[in-house]
């Protein structure tokens, strides 16, 4: 769920710690694979082989673990005909839409607030305790309240994802501002930059790498929360599909749901990585 750079960005909270480990925050933007590729292929093949083996020799009942063949057939069936009147595309789209809406709203509000909190001690004093209170709360714990307040529709889910992503995004934007080197701000001021210019051309670019790191963590958190929320109260979405399939012992559908979710999760985190290396091309270059 979290990468090494994210680990550092996430845990580095105190101002002094941020300065101290600013160098440690230089990210590996590419988490490329090291070592022989054939071994990676081998491990994937082995997993599939073990699956086939267990199935072929009926080591566990068919109901509990359908074979790769059946799962493949069901996959094509769900793609064409759908599962209980919703196709795989519709379910994936519903999940991604909720996740994206909550995440984008959190970015739109959390980043400016975090920047302000990092830049203006007064803003931080007024808002920080709220963010820090929300940060360690497991999001699902207040889902029930949101359902109580906003109903069981999309509003409560989007609000949940918003609240999941918001403290992460805001804290990382705040920490990002702190990584700005004081000498740079002073240099810009000495050269006659206005306050807005200092913020626009010095502070903001310095904060951007950590903002992206925070965005990546927040997106991952929102993605795993959306599935949990759909398990609880939804009529579409991948989480709903998996949960509903478990009620009817359709383990083939569950396995497809898990594989699709895993792939979607990997694609999402890759997407942010690519955006990150495109936009924040100065990451790690000092």
């Amino acid at each position, binding site marked *: *769920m*979290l990468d*090494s750079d994210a*680990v550092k960005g*996430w*845990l580095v909270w105190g101002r002094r710690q941020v300065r101290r*480990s600013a160098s440690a925050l230089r990210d590996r933007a590419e988490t490329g*694979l*090291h*070592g*022989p*590729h054939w*071994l*990676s292929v081998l*491990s*994937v093949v082995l*997993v599939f082989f073990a699956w086939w083996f267990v199935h072929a020799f009926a080591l566990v009942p068919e109901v*509990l673990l359908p074979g790769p063949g059946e799962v493949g057939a069901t996959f094509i069936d769900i793609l064409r005909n759908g599962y209980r009147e919703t196709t795989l595309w519709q379910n994936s789209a519903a999940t991604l839409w909720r996740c994206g809406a909550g995440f984008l709203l959190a970015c739109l509000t959390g980043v400016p607030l975090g920047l302000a909190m990092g830049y203006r*001690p*007064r803003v931080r*004093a*007024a*808002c*920080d*305790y*709220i963010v820090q*209170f929300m940060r*360690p*709360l*497991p999001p*699902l*714990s*207040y889902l*029930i*309240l949101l*359902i*109580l*307040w906003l109903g069981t529709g999309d509003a409560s889910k989007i609000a949940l994802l918003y609240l999941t992503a918001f403290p992460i995004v805001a804290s990382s934007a705040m920490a990002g501002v702190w990584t700005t080197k004081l000498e740079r701000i002073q240099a810009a001021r000495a050269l006659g930059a206005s306050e807005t210019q200092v913020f626009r051309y010095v502070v903001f670019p310095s904060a951007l790498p950590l903002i992206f790191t925070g965005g990546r963590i927040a997106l*991952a958190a929102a993605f*795993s*929360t959306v*599935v*949990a929320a759909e*398990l*609880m109260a939804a009529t579409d979405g*991948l*989480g709903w599909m*998996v*949960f509903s399939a*478990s009620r009817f012992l359709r*383990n083939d559908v*569950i396995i497809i*749901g*898990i594989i699709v*979710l*895993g792939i979607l*999760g*990997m694609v*999402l*985190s890759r997407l942010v990585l690519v955006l990150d290396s495109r936009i924040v091309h100065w990451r790690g270059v000092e």
Partner: protein
Amino acid sequence: MSAIPALGSLWRALGERRVTAVSVLVVMLAWVGATEGGLVDDLFLPSPSSLWDGFLDLVENGYKSRTIWEHAGLSLERVLSGFVTGALVGTFLGLAMGYNRKVEAFFSPLIEFLRPLPQLAYLVLLIVWFGIDETPQIILLFLTALPVSAIAAMDGVKGVSVLRMQAARSMGASEWQVFRYVVFPSALHEIFTGARLAVGVVYATLIAAEIIAGSTGLGWMILDAGRFLRSDYVFVGILAIGIMGLLLDRLLLAIEHRVVHWAGRD
């Protein structure tokens, strides 16, 4: 008379905390005003007094035959058993992956797939396989902690300065000694960082798991109270969950400071 200037200087000495104090006060006043003033129904947002009553009730009488302490204890037990097993296996795996590229190449596809996968997705499968008692929840938490710890340990080993390893080797350290006295202590900081992260994720996952498929524990208590519209219990439960999560994190941080006292002094 002299008390007022003293208070004034105290007020000034508080600095930025004044803003925090005012902000907390405003939020509290809004809460009290909205609930006691009857703007919001007690059903949606309990007033401070009914929250306190709810807390006392949970401590004394409990919720569905268990007190709040028992629910918290059950949750904590699950978190710890899942976290300890997952973190131990994950750390060993991560150390091996960081140390040996072949091991890394072999396990990284599995870890990379498991990592971004929403944990709750495979909870459903685990429940179908193992029933709805403790087993699937503990396996779920094990699988949650494992990739987080493994990646942290792997990065820790990879971050060890080559100079130090070479220095130890040139002074005649055996491969095991290099690992025991150079690689492991250098990686320990990252391992602890990973452990703190893992505890956070495991905790959030457990609450979710209890909400979806539990019959005891804080997460279940919240869900069940929510179904009966007892929002005072829900609020107490949320606060308890938040405080317990914070304490877990602080505990690990304290252990880390004790054990890895050399961190950050390179």
